[in-house]
């Protein structure tokens, strides 16, 4: 009867079970988890167990002890012994307090099990042999790569090597893997054609705030409970950083944090239930859940796609005109020279308020009354003249918007204008997607067009025939890159060209012979040699010549920080990686050392030196090697702004194991007075991260319409719908794990779009139908869910799914200032799909996911 095999009891960890602490492998919240491992058959009992609680009676609701069907798995270690694995949310973690999301709750079943859902992990290095792959030894794989990379650099230059690697923490092995990738690609190979997992270039997504002197991770999760007003701007927190919402924002709305506020606020300062402003074109569950809790304390602004910075500036102008800005803060903490530019261009003080607002209303579609209310909720002083404390959290709705740089800058500046940085209940920063764990040598492009940039667009380089080798690490650009149908088409062609050139009587396994043929193909054609390093077979990997199997979360010790408190913790190793797979840092180390040996053998000391210091023996060693990049961190608290935001110098894996779920907040300082390691709760209390410590203002651009890549659709009746993309609560990223977990793939079996009931009626379609969504960039067939999240005329699509990508439709536009794409805005046409619907739809719920009443 059940759609998949359910469990009706769970094995109990005995008191002597192995115990580890870890942090969830998924979203930016970074919930703490406890891990228990014990041999199969050696269970504890209801009264005596590793949880230390009596399991013979049901645990009361919200008790903070959860152990569910998805929190247990059976694993096999390299010793051949089968073990039970339980991964349960940590009650003692101040991030989640025992709570967990639909993603984190599956940490255990997503671990590799040779008999479970995830048995299809990659286990051996694979070489493409015609239309299939064959396992080869690591020594051959490393020899092929190193020989080929060296020969290619020597003949065509370092820029002939293109790379796309993750730079995040959590599911990647955080600081350890990132340092290794930085050493190999930035110090060693030295190519300019670098790109990050989710975008076509090597850039910050938030140079608009960093170049102001304010790093994007500056607040603490506590601030979401302490704020008078929380602003969620283009950040679907309930669905994408769930526990930040349920454990920190929701209690504030419910009034559960008023006492906490009283303790944190000044004497006599009013403390009440929180207000929430959501700026999002969609009435998604982040809005509807909040309204179900406190209808009158939720304000929802729904700007037209691409127009948010105009809205932010209009709200700032209302604040200025009412005198609600923080004059003392502006004068003391910000650069009044650059402020003139902001006043002129962003606040438009030379124009009358009514004119500015009328124009903003026309561009954004947001009524003036709502702008006024937002301004009041963000900045109107409280009774007694106390400044309102507002925390602003933004994410991909802003970052992956048109004009990335100006969007981010406008929101950061709105917060600084109102003095909302560095105090309890304030802050302005990213929500984040993954957790972070970035430590690398300096990037070739240091900043936006205003600071030495913009960086190269690797996608355009490759689709235009550039490059010889493309090395992809833990990302699946065939699904995830913008304009992905075109990208895939071009890369397939170039990979096929290479394969065709070298496949003469088969593809040779002998490294020397293979390299000779590949180099010959490079000379004669635009063939592309793709290397994919991942934990599963991916769509992109299907066209790779070489696939390298990597270790996943839990299979090596790693460290990362979460995004809402910069909380550094250890994500310990509790199981072995499948087959011959290795941590990414180890793979990169082997290639680096081989390259060094080849250059030494060729008498090229200078090149050999570039690949030095990569012979790490352990994960702890890589972590320590990376820490030296941060420089001297012996500074007093008042100078924390000088430190790199993720600085952990002085911290070791051993220290983090002792700290467990408590962790330590970066930047970590060595306090000059005590000599102790000290974390930083919130940033920029004393100064900003600029040369003189002052916040640097920026006058944003005026509205000038849409870029040509989208403007071409505006008056074209073939593409009547605006189209935006985003995430689903249910699945993580490309569903690399979720595509194998029945709880997930049965619930979301296909790529999908959400369509408003009025549009659905006009198109004569209903939930459960299939449609083809199309424009000049590409087409996708998608399942339809009808709901009222978007306005009529706006279609929402899941960015990508294991079985297809809606990024086929996104344009190749990137912000000329930063090379960040506009994933979230284009126009499309819709055709009802007349074929028989995929039978997979039978398992999915068709109920609207934003109706919570």
């Amino acid at each position: 009867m059940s759609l998949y095999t359910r469990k009706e009891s769970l094995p109990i960890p005995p008191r002597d079970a192995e115990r580890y602490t870890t942090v969830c492998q998924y979203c930016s919240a970074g919930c703490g988890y406890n891990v228990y491992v014990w041999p199969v058959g050696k269970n504890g009992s209801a009264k005596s167990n590793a949880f230390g609680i009596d399991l013979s009676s049901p645990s009361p609701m919200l008790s903070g002890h959860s152990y569910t069907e998805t929190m247990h798995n059976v694993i096999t270690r390299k010793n051949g012994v089968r073990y039970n694995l339980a991964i349960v949310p940590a009650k003692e973690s101040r991030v989640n307090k025992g709570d967990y999301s639909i993603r984190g709750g599956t940490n255990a079943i997503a671990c590799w099990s040779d008999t479970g859902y995830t048995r299809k992990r990659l286990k051996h290095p694979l070489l493409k042999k015609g239309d299939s792959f064959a396992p080869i030894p690591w020594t051959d794989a490393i020899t092929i790569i190193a020989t080929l990379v060296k020969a290619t650099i020597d003949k065509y230059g370092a820029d002939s090597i293109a790379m796309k690697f993750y730079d995040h923490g959590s599911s990647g092995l955080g600081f350890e893997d990132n340092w290794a990738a930085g050493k190999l690609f930035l110090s060693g190979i030295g190519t300019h054609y670098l790109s990050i997992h989710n975008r076509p270039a090597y850039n910050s997504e938030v140079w608009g705030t960093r170049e102001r002197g304010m790093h994007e991770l500056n607040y603490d999760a506590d601030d979401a409970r302490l704020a008078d007003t929380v602003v969620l701007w283009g950040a679907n927190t309930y669905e994408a950083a769930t526990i930040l919402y349920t454990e920190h924002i929701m209690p504030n709305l419910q009034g559960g944090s008023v006492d906490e506020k009283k303790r944190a606020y000044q004497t006599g300062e009013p403390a009440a239930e929180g207000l929430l402003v959501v700026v999002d074109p969609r009435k998604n569950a982040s809005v509807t859940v909040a309204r179900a809790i406190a209808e009158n304390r939720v304000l929802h602004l729904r700007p037209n796609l691409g127009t948010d910075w105009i809205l932010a500036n209009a709200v700032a102008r209302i604040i200025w005109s009412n005198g609600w800005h923080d004059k003392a803060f502006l004068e003391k903490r910000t650069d009044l020279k650059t402020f003139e530019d902001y006043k002129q261009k962003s606040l438009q003080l030379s124009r009358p308020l009514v004119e500015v607002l009328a124009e903003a209303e026309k561009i954004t579609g947001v009524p003036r009354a709502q702008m006024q209310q937002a301004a009041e909720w963000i900045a109107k002083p409280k009774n007694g003249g106390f400044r309102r404390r507002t925390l602003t959290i933004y994410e991909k709705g802003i970052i992956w918007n048109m004009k990335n740089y100006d969007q981010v800058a406008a929101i950061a500046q709105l917060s600084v204008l109102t003095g909302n940085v560095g105090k309890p209940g304030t802050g302005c920063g990213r929500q984040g997607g993954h957790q972070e764990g970035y430590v690398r040598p300096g990037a070739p492009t240091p900043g936006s067009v205003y600071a030495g940039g913009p960086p190269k667009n690797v996608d355009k380089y490759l689709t235009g025939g550039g490059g010889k080798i493309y090395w992809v690490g833990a990302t699946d650009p065939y699904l995830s890159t913008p304009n992905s149908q075109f990208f895939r088409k071009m890369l397939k062609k170039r990979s096929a060209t290479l394969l065709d050139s070298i496949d003469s009587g088969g593809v040779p396994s002998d490294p020397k012979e293979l390299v000779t043929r590949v180099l010959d193909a490079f000379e004669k054609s635009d063939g592309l040699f793709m290397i994919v390093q991942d934990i599963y077979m991916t769509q992109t990997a299907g066209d790779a010549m070489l696939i390298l199997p990597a270790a996943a979360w839990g299979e090596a010790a790693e460290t990362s920080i979460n995004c809402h408190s910069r909380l550094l913790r250890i994500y310990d190793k509790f199981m072995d990686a499948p087959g011959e797979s290795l941590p990414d840092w180890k793979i990169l180390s082997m290639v680096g050392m081989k390259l060094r040996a080849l250059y030494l053998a060729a008498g090229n000391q200078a090149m050999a030196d570039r690949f030095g210091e990569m012979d790490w023996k352990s994960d702890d060693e890589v972590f320590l090697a990376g820490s030296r990049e941060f420089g001297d961190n012996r500074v007093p608290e008042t100078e924390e702004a000088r430190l790199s935001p993720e600085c952990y110098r002085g911290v070791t894996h051993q220290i983090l194991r002792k700290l467990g779920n408590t962790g330590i907040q970066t930047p970590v300082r060595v306090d000059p007075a005590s000599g102790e390691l000290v974390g930083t709760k919130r940033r920029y209390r004393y100064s900003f991260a600029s040369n003189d410590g002052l916040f640097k203002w920026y006058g944003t651009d005026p509205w000038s319409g849409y870029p040509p890549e989208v403007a071409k659709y505006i008056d074209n009746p073939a593409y009547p719908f605006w189209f935006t993309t985003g995430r689903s609560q249910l699945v993580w990223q490309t569903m690399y794990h979720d595509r194998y977990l029945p709880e997930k793939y049965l619930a979301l079996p296909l790529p999908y779009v959400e369509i408003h009931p009025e549009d659905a009626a006009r198109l004569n379609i209903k939930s459960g139908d299939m449609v083809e969504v199309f424009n000049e960039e590409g087409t996708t067939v998608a399942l339809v869910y009808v709901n009222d999240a978007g306005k009529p005329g706006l279609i929402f699509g899941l960015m990508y799914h294991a079985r297809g990508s809606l990024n086929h439709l996104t344009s190749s536009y990137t912000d000329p200032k930063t090379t960040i794409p506009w994933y979230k805005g284009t126009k499309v046409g819709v055709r009802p799909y007349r074929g028989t619907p995929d039978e997979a739809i039978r398992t999915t719920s068709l109920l609207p996911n934003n109706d919570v009443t």
Partner: protein
Amino acid sequence: MSPISRRTFLQTSSATLALALFGLSGTAESATGKRYPSIKIGNLRQLKEGEPVQFNYPDPSSPCNLVMLNEEAVGGIGPDRKVVAFSALCPHMGCPVNYSKGRFLCGCHYSMFDAAKNGQTYQGLASQWLPQITLRLDRTSGSIFAEGVEGLISGRIGNLNIS
């Protein structure tokens, strides 16, 4: 060891008890080897569409809902397979779930479970789907019996381990 706790045994009416004993051979065996009880929980003729009826299963400390939907459901019984039953405890953190509009909604964190689709979490925090109660219909009398649980009841280490 009895599959039914002493308390359940005493609370069960004699008519139900007779059927429970009669139906014993038809009940599901749990993973722990214990057998689920067969308990009469309602009558098809008394069910009204969209109006859930509460019952406890497999023991008194496990509240459940029996409901007739307006569509065919996975695991549904009755002429149109519209009658289903689920645990009333959210598998996320054990809060009560309430039925409306074809789904069970948890008031603590707003997880939502589709009653026609096996209790699947289609929104919210519960990584585990809502446990569904296996039902059997006596066509002659219209009596509905609960005879098993698919999925782990929230807060328990085993569905039948609690005594």
